[in-house]
């Protein structure tokens, strides 16, 4: 576990030292495994807790760590210390992508627009449902949420751990207003955005003085308060049971059903449940693109520049006469508004919502997408959403693993485990995110190669 002593003179492999390292790591692993893996607890037939010894699992864990640590230690001995450990992409790849980002954006956009058609052609009408719904719509919701939170975290630098509260406000606004007043999706979509923005401002006011970790914890508390109120105020929100039978969105007034006035009959198609999914896909795609467009435009407006200035240095901001109160509140409310849009879309897509969908884990997921993607970078968010959400969705598809590990093996159980693990690993590997383009859009005379934050870390 400690760094191996590799002086330039002793460049040849020192097996003994590596073995020592590996043995130490294995010993630690053994200690970690002792109670928690070595014995499983299980309720037996009489509902009494019994222990199952599982020393084989411990042996596996220890063996894997021993071998892994041994190989890493050997590798570190032969490696030049100055060289980076791994280089997945050839030098200059990121720069190439950045130079041609417009081209890649167009390409990506083209792919997204034609995605349903590609999916139908590749997987057929029955198989495409899963791909468009589980992958397309699901990932796009998170992309949109990531881009919305990116305004708060990435641009304004305010760490928000309760973003899911606004998602919940949007979802419940749509569900309650649509069920109780029969308003349509297209009226409620902007309305829930406005309501969420209002809540964003309301929750933003008291926390204006806070910064950093404190802000994070208070926003987390607000997120939890909203969820707990939704659970306990049964008359209003239905409590744990949630709200079901939420009206589904219509094609500008034409419902997606098999009736004569339905979408399929009206346009002369054969009825298929896929129509609604494809429609929903384009709606969320449009919403996500609007979010991206607004973000890009806002960055060039005075308010966007004020956000970026606030992120870089709040004190300097204040001394230059920027109204930090307004700047923070606009960031909070605009970010919340996009969360509200996504929430109302989510409610319309599911047809059922409950407080279970708005737990802290969702906030953490969205924040992970923003931070892992590289704060402030739209591309980074999109890629992180695809990796984190799409990657964990892909685990559902890994049925062949059952043939390797036996029938009880269920890859989906490892979903969140891998998710948390990935968060830690990506942070250690690339603390600034996968795509770290956090340059201010406005600069004086010439762009500095290194931002102020990097200098603080000692890169300058």
């Amino acid at each position, binding site marked *: 576990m400690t760094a191996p002593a590799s002086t330039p003179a002793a460049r040849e492999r020192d097996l003994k030292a590596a073995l020592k390292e590996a043995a130490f790591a294995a010993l630690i692993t053994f200690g970690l495994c002792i*109670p928690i893996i070595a014995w499983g607890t299980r309720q037996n037939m009489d509902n009494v807790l019994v222990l199952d010894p599982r020393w084989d699992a411990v042996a596996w864990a220890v063996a894997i760590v021993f071998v892994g640590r041994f190989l890493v230690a050997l590798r570190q001995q032969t490696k030049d210390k100055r060289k980076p450990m791994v280089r997945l992409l050839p030098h200059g790849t990121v720069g190439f992508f950045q130079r041609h980002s417009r081209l890649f954006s167009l390409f990506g956009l083209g792919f997204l627009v034609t995605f349903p058609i590609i999916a139908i052609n590749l997987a057929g009408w029955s198989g495409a449902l899963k791909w468009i719904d589980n992958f397309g719509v699901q990932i796009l919701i998170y992309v949109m949420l990531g881009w919305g939170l990116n305004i708060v975290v990435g641009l304004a630098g305010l760490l928000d751990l309760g973003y899911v509260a606004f998602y919940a406000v949007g979802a419940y606004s749509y569900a309650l207003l649509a069920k109780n007043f029969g308003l349509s999706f297209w009226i409620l979509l902007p309305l829930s955005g406005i309501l969420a923005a209002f809540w964003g401002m309301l929750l933003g006011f008291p926390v204006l003085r806070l910064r950093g*970790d404190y802000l994070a914890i208070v926003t987390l*508390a607000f997120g939890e308060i909203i969820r707990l109120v939704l659970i306990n105020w049964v008359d209003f929100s239905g409590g744990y049971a949630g709200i079901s039978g939420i009206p589904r969105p219509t094609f500008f007034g034409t419902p997606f059903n098999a009736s004569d006035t339905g979408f399929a009959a009206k346009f002369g198609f054969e009825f298929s449940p896929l129509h609604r999914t494809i429609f929903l896909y384009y709606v969320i795609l449009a919403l996500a693109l609007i979010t991206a467009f607004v973000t890009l435009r806002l960055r060039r407006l005075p308010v966007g520049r004020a956000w970026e200035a606030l992120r870089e240095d709040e004190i300097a901001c204040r001394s230059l006469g920027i109204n930090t109160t307004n700047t923070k509140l606009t960031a909070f409310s605009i970010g919340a508004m996009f969360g509200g849009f996504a929430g109302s879309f989510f409610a319309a897509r599911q047809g059922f919502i409950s407080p279970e969908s708005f737990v802290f884990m969702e906030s953490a997921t969205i924040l992970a997408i923003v931070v892992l993607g590289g704060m402030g970078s739209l591309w980074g968010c999109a890629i992180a959403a695809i990796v984190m959400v799409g990657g964990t969705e892909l685990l559902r598809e890994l049925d062949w693993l059952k043939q390797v590990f036996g029938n009880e093996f269920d890859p989906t159980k490892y979903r969140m485990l891998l998710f948390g693990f990935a968060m830690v690993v990506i942070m250690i590997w690339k603390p600034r995110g996968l795509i770290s383009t956090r340059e201010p859009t406005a600069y004086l005379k010439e762009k500095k190669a290194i931002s102020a934050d990097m200098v603080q870390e000692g890169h300058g």
Partner: protein
Amino acid sequence: MEVFLQQLINGLTLGSIYGLIAIGYTMVFGIIGMVNFSHGDVFMLSAFIALIFFMLIASFFGAAMIVLALIFVLVLAMFFTALWGWTIERLAYRPLRGSFRLAPLISAIGMSIFLMNFVQLVQGPRNKSTPPMLNKSITLIESATYSVQISYKQIVIIVTTAVLLAAFWYLVQKTPLGRAQRACEQDRKMAALLGVDVDRTISITFIMGAALAAVAGVMYLVLYGVVSFHDGFVPGVKAFTAAVLGGIGSLPGAVLGGLLIGLIEVMWSGYFSIDYKDVAAFCILAIVLVFMPSGILGRPEVEKV
């Protein structure tokens, strides 16, 4: 009055547990300025470790000598949880020291998710309950309508907490180790220049925090007799609230905050509504942070430009 007294006892018991967890938050925040988000889950993990050891000891020696068994479980749980705390710091936080402000927090959130799901995976998603232990209680005040009782569990919890707190307070205030810790808290660079091994000191801080969380875990198990994999989050946030309320960075403050939070929670559920007890705790967190960010016993933060 009797009801109030009873709630006071219950609140102090719960508050002791929060106080023990809060110390882990406050020490880590004091020394490296980071919210150790996974601390609540370390607490939950320690409760599981304690559960397994308790059952092992019970299956070998029978449940006859419960006090001796509890002491054994306490020591073992403290040791193994401290090992977890050390490993987490070593793998997830140390590489990020000196990185940008949010990086350790994100890593800690990831660690929290990892630990929660790890325990769910290896121990199953269901609630785990222990056989009842220490069920006797002493009646303090007997009246016609209501009698105030203090159970053996509550006595054990309050006494253990008090003893351990005294021990740790001595450790931080009077020993060279504690001096090194306080030096790192004030200025890490300067402490390093003066020959304090900063990395080692931080490791020990995490070990101490985890060990105290393990004590809290054992006490939690004794008090409720049930634990499940998602029991770490809410006590974790409440303990953090306690640390903030008492003044983050201050050891007596964390305990005071813990006791206050425990009392408020119990009083709130006793007199108002049990459904909203968590809301009350979260509201206190928000109110304290907004209006009194330095807490009750904390030093006000000086903003340096």
